[in-house]
């Protein structure tokens, strides 16, 4: 029996998507559908012949993944992508807001807010055409809109420009249009239109917690907290982002394993403290982690970490060991079934490569360092160092390719910054739970500000070291 069936499935699934990308345009959905069906049927027919049946099964998986990828590039006749040219179209557009505010930035004395916007219709030649598709809408407005707000706007709509692969980046997220408008030209037609109640309340909680951070925390440190807790780095000042980039610690701004692991531990301990039965607190922790996915706007690194954590917790609940490669495989397949284009998303690639590198190399390095790990402090130090080295090794080439930078200093800077981040995360969750209490609130604000400040200083220090980072080209 295969020890890692899900890891194998994930590998062939990924191969299928890569293959589909290189296929010529003449290969269409019906042909791939038929070939997938043939592979599946022949695998069933030859089930007595294990080797042949296994080969056909792997071909079925590859072919199915190709099919999903091709399908993700097919759009209905009334999709917005068929109606837009490179030039701006000045018209009326109706649609529904499908996200909380993504970015809010000052722009020549006004505020520009962006949201995801599902198009319902566009006015063309005095007629409303029923179209569909996702757009990014930028509103010059002080007013806040919410998920489920149905709007009628007068503004410009166009295809995203293709500078620096921006159009490709948006299309991977199924965003095909950019809409710009001003507050005066926006009418709220309805609230809560075709909205999912779970998402609605999740976004409401997100906005409330965001408002609490904005209200209580100093500007830059509050922006940092919003980045590490909610995945919102839109208001984090550029110079701080540059420090993290140059010190090789940009990854801490992406919510992933460290954050999810800590949340899971905190929730479980809290529920155990409340004397909840074992089975129930595992289930509640899993549900809480799943809630965290839309809370952080479903980024691939969050989905990967949450799925892996859930598989681990389910395994523990059922009293079974869980292979980490299988759980990584499930996470990859789940994300890619949902959106095959995510495979070419740099966040997805970095997230999975880093984890894969850590999982594969850390045990090997730790075995080499066995004689130095007799004491728990030495063991902790060796473990931290090997994780830092392996994560850097696993992602260095990709970061060099995409961002034209290499940061050897990352191996050292992470050793200092990650432990401080861990303390800050505990303080931040405590702030969410207890921040409303008068004394505890002030203490936690001071505590979090202090540790956020330490992280900024460390990132700045390591980022400014000579030979710490190199830009290419």
């Amino acid at each position, binding site marked *: 029996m*295969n020890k890692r069936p899900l890891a194998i499935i994930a590998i062939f699934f990924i191969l299928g998507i890569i293959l589909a990308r290189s296929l010529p345009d003449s290969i269409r959905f019906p042909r791939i*559908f038929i070939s997938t069906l043939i592979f599946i049927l022949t*695998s069933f027919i030859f089930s007595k012949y294990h080797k042949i049946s296994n080969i056909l099964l792997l071909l079925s998986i590859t072919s199915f993944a190709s099919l999903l990828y091709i399908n993700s590039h097919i759009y209905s006749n*009334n999709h917005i992508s068929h109606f837009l040219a490179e030039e701006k179209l000045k018209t009326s557009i109706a649609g529904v807001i499908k996200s909380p505010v993504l970015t809010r930035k000052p722009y020549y004395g006004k505020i520009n807010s962006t949201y995801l916007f599902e198009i319902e219709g566009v006015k063309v030649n005095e007629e409303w055409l029923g179209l569909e598709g996702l757009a990014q809408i930028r509103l010059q407005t002080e007013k806040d809109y919410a998920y489920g707000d149905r709007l*009628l706007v007068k503004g410009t709509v166009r295809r995203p420009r293709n500078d620096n692969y921006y159009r490709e980046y948006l299309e991977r997220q199924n965003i095909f249009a950019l809409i710009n408008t001003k507050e005066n030209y926006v009418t709220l037609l309805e609230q809560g239109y075709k909205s999912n109640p779970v998402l609605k309340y999740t976004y409401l909680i997100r906005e409330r917690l965001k408002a609490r951070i904005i209200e209580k925390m100093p500007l830059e440190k509050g922006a940092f907290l919003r980045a590490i807790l909610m995945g919102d780095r839109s208001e984090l000042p550029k110079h701080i982002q540059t420090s993290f980039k140059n010190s090789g610690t940009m990854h801490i701004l992406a919510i992933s394993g460290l954050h999810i692991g800590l949340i899971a531990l905190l929730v479980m301990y809290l529920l155990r403290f409340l004397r909840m039965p074992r089975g129930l607190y595992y289930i509640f922790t899993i549900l809480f982690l799943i809630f965290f996915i839309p809370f952080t706007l479903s980024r691939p690194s969050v989905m990967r970490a949450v799925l892996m954590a859930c598989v681990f917790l389910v395994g523990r609940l059922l009293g079974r060991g869980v292979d980490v490669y299988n759980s990584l495989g499930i996470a990859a397949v789940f994300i890619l079934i949902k959106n095959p284009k995510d495979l070419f998303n740099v966040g997805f690639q970095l997230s999975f490569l880093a984890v894969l590198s850590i999982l594969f190399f850390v045990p090997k390095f730790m075995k080499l360092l066995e004689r130095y790990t007799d004491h728990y402090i030495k063991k902790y130090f060796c473990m931290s160092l090997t994780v830092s080295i392996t994560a850097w090794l696993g992602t260095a080439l990709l970061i060099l390719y995409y961002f034209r930078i290499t940061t050897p200093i990352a191996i050292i800077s992470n050793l200092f910054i990650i432990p401080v981040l861990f303390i800050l995360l505990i303080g931040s969750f405590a702030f969410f739970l207890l921040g409303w209490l008068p004394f505890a609130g002030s203490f936690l604000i001071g505590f979090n500000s202090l540790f956020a400040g330490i992280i900024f200083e460390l990132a700045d220090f390591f980022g400014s070291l000579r030979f710490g980072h190199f830009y290419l080209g």
Partner: protein
Amino acid sequence: MLVFSKSERYIILTFLVVGLFSAGLFYYGKVSGFEVKTININESDSLIDINTASAQQLERLPGIGPVLAQDIVVYRQRTGLFKRIEELKHIKGIGDKKFEKIKDLIRISE
């Protein structure tokens, strides 16, 4: 390493069959619509009724500040409801240029 047991193969193939036919249905749904349909959007909901709007609502119009919005309300109270949107030009501060900016954003209730 690449070997699956019979039961694993059957489970995976079952998922693949379900997935395949779901993908087929989605594809059919996307390509089967031949015409782009027109829809009904009630644009009058978006227009500001200058006979019923408050000063605050009127301020949403471009170029209409608090003073001018109040002037519109006062004019309406003195001379009665507007019968045509062009009557706004009778108000000091609303000339041809400003009227051109706001005329597509206003209406008169019947």
